[in-house]
């Protein structure tokens, strides 16, 4: 009995050492499992989307698209809103602030080339890729761009106007007073088509700023000066100004207006028969593809050409087609 007891006691002499060893190994195991948990929770990347100025529904569509893509690609989208009164200076300021705060990539629909250049320079220095939306210019720091082919869109608009006029009549172009190369490309595209049609005569156009009233005045002057059968309005404000003047003169339907954009007001005017054709680009796709491109750029892909989106021609008849509804009217409340 005594000897049995002694046998049992022998390992106990070593027990302390053993216990320490086992405890330290358990400790090590727990340490490593902690590390595993940490590894499995990667830091989410932030992508900023700086809102476009005066884009309204189009801007909302871009945001929705970007949000959808961010969810798909596991990103956090920081949306930087702008006030309706904000201008390019405010947009640039907001973009630079985001850059300073630190973001993996910045998506911006720049108000002007200057905004894009300034932001591009600083972002390039900070090694943050810029993805330009609705802009074909891939300047310094801009690593990818999502845009429509403005010249092609212009040609499409020209064709639609000529079609509405039955290839006969006087056409005026209402443009922006901004030096926007996108708008210039659209104008060139449209002119290239219209000038090729013998029955069509291109009258002197007019230019207006970002305010609707200014465009209305420009349209008024234009219609006072010229007798036109068709107006090609190169942006939303121009189209609204022209529509207002046409409605005021009570000549809606007689003067055919073809324009760009899918603003709700434009859609209303389209349904009312004041505007006749809209060349529409899909804002949702722009936002979605913008985030998608940002992810690809961050993962090391290189792009030297913008991604060109198709445009759609919308009129009063097809605007409520199911496919078009979903493009034109995002689920905004």
């Amino acid at each position: 009995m005594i000897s049995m007891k002694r046998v049992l006691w022998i390992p106990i002499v070593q027990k302390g050492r053993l216990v320490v060893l086992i405890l330290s190994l358990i400790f090590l195991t727990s340490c490593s499992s902690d590390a595993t948990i940490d590894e499995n929770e990667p830091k989410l990347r932030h992508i900023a989307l700086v809102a476009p100025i005066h884009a309204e529904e189009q801007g909302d569509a871009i945001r929705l698209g970007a949000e959808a893509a961010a969810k798909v690609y596991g990103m956090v989208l920081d949306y930087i809103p702008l006030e309706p009164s904000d201008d390019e200076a405010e947009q640039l300021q907001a973009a630079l602030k985001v850059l300073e705060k630190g973001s993996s990539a910045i998506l911006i629909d720049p108000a002007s080339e200057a905004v894009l250049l300034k932001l591009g320079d600083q972002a390039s220095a900070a090694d943050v890729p810029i993805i330009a939306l609705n802009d074909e210019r891939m300047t310094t720091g801009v690593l990818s761009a999502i845009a429509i082919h403005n010249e092609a869109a212009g040609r499409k608009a020209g064709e639609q106007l000529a079609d509405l006029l039955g290839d006969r009549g006087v056409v005026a172009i209402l443009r922006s007073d901004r030096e926007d190369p996108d708008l210039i490309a659209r104008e060139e595209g449209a002119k290239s088509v219209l000038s090729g049609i013998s029955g069509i005569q291109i009258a002197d156009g007019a230019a207006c700023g970002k305010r609707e009233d200014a465009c209305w005045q420009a349209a008024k002057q234009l219609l006072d000066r010229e007798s036109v059968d068709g107006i090609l309005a190169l942006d939303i404000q121009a189209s609204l100004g022209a529509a207002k003047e046409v409605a005021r003169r009570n000549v809606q339907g007689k003067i055919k207006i073809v324009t760009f954009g899918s603003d709700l007001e434009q859609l209303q005017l389209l349904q009312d028969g004041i505007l006749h054709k809209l060349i529409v680009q899909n804002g949702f796709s722009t936002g979605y593809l913008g985030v998608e491109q940002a992810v690809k750029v961050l993962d090391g892909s290189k792009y030297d050409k913008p991604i060109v989106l198709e445009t759609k021609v919308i009129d009063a008849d097809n605007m409520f087609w199911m496919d078009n509804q979903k493009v034109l009217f995002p689920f905004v409340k």
Partner: protein
Amino acid sequence: MKIAYAKRNSIKPTIQRWIRRFCAHSIQSIIMWSFSAFILLIVIVVAVLLFNKFSRSAEQSVFLNAQQIVDQVSYNLEDYVDGMAQLYRAIEENMLADGQWDDEQVTQQLNTIMRSRDDIVSIALFNEQGDMLRNHPAMPVKASARVTEQSWFHSAMRVSNHLSFSLPHVQNLYDHTFKWVVTMSKGITVVHNGEPTYVILLVDINFKKIDELSSRISLGKRGYAYIIDEGAGNIVYHPQQQLIYMGLRNESVERALTSSDSYIDESDGVKRLNTVKSVVNIGWKIVGVSYLDEIMTTREEVNRYLVQVVAMVLVLAIAVSLILSAMLTRPIRRMGRTMKAVERGDFNVELPMQGPLEVVQLSSRFNLMLDKIRQLMKQIVKEQESKRRYELEALQAQINPHFLYNTLNSVVRMVGMSKKEEVITMITSLSKLFRLSLSKGKTSISVREELEHARHYLTIQQMRYKQKFDFLIEADEAAQSCYTLKLVLQPLIENAIVHGIEYMVDQGHIHITAAIQGDLLEMTVRDNGVGMSPEMLERILEVETLRQHPAPFINTAGSGVAVRNVHDRIQLYYGHRYGLEYESELEEGTTVRIRIPIIHESGEEREHD
């Protein structure tokens, strides 16, 4: 530098020893490796089983989760649609019960309903021609509305008295509102102003609510749900439906239409789990999409975790088995070391009586065995000593007759020469010599007696050698009372006479002393004879030769053998510290010193004590 070298030197053999221990078929290595292998096997089996169980249950939970979420969305939608149908009935009753839709009471009731429900966009009543009879809120229908061409109008006209739900669409009745709505419509015949009239009641509900119900679900990190129309397979709602219309995305609606459960969709190269559930009262189907690579991630996580656990357990198992095997085999190794010591000839070791029961038993038996060996060895030594003593005593017995023969020969010769006086002296000395030699059989006698014996022996020899030498015996009183082995002087004296004096020309002289020197009794026999060469001096006390070759001991003539005998006897009795010491120089003489301990009682008395 030196220290490092020394360290390396000490570490290297340790490592080698450990490697040897674990590579060889040692018990420790067998225990360790088998223990580790066993644990590893069990852990791997458990890990594989757990992995299967974990990953299967993870998959099942994802399947179940998706199913539950989709079910939940479906129930919510059904509930919502049911609620809307009830609301529709309430509006219908309020507006059409008495066939009066334009009195004040109806307006109030509609107001109440509209105020309580923010998801109702508009309520409108049309006649068969598409003319508006009443609407709430009251707004003019826009000219371009084309009411009769709208799908909800067709549905109401096609089947009367059946509430139909339209697909989500943009409301196109009033100016400046392009809200996404689902239209509830029904064609009813009512009696209005006494005439039966067919009217169509329309209630537009904001799609926002359905959008919220469908979009606020989470199926993993990237999962989503979409709704299709069971009839035509149109996508009613999709979180990315604009992408679908732009052709940037695809959903395999056909499979979802025919399926009523879960299925794996690989149409766009990514494995996705689609979970389908019908919303019966509205004819829609909800399709929940989960990404399977998220499940795979869970599986990989489980896998990685299990591999870590297995590795840790293995390390733990090896460490524990290392310690355990070392602990278990330690007594055995200790036993081995002890046995090796015994092998080297160290019998004064003992195994400690501790460790496991078997080891204690083994140790006990080993100790018993060792004890027995020690006893046997002691016995052998004792026996050998006794044997030696007997041999010596036998030899001693042979010396006396030899001497007696020579002496008697001399006596005969002296009788022949009629030397009566000398004969008397010689016989007297001889008889005394024998008496002293016998000494009642005792092995030790007093120095006095030993000197007496020597004197008689010298007297006899002096006569035999015709006064060729003279002698002198000197002894302290204290020395004389001490005890010594008997007959130690006689062989030395014989040696001095035979080898030292016999052949010398001059008169020989033998000087015998006995004195106490410190803690020793010293007796000397000094002669002035021919002396010995150093070689001979060396040979004379070769004890080993004596032990190893006892045979020449007896046969060799001369007293060289006898001298060794004396030396041997002294050492046997008193120990190796004592014995003879020779000093000799050729032509000068030889001195022999006998050193023995100072003993004041006879050997017999000591033994009795």
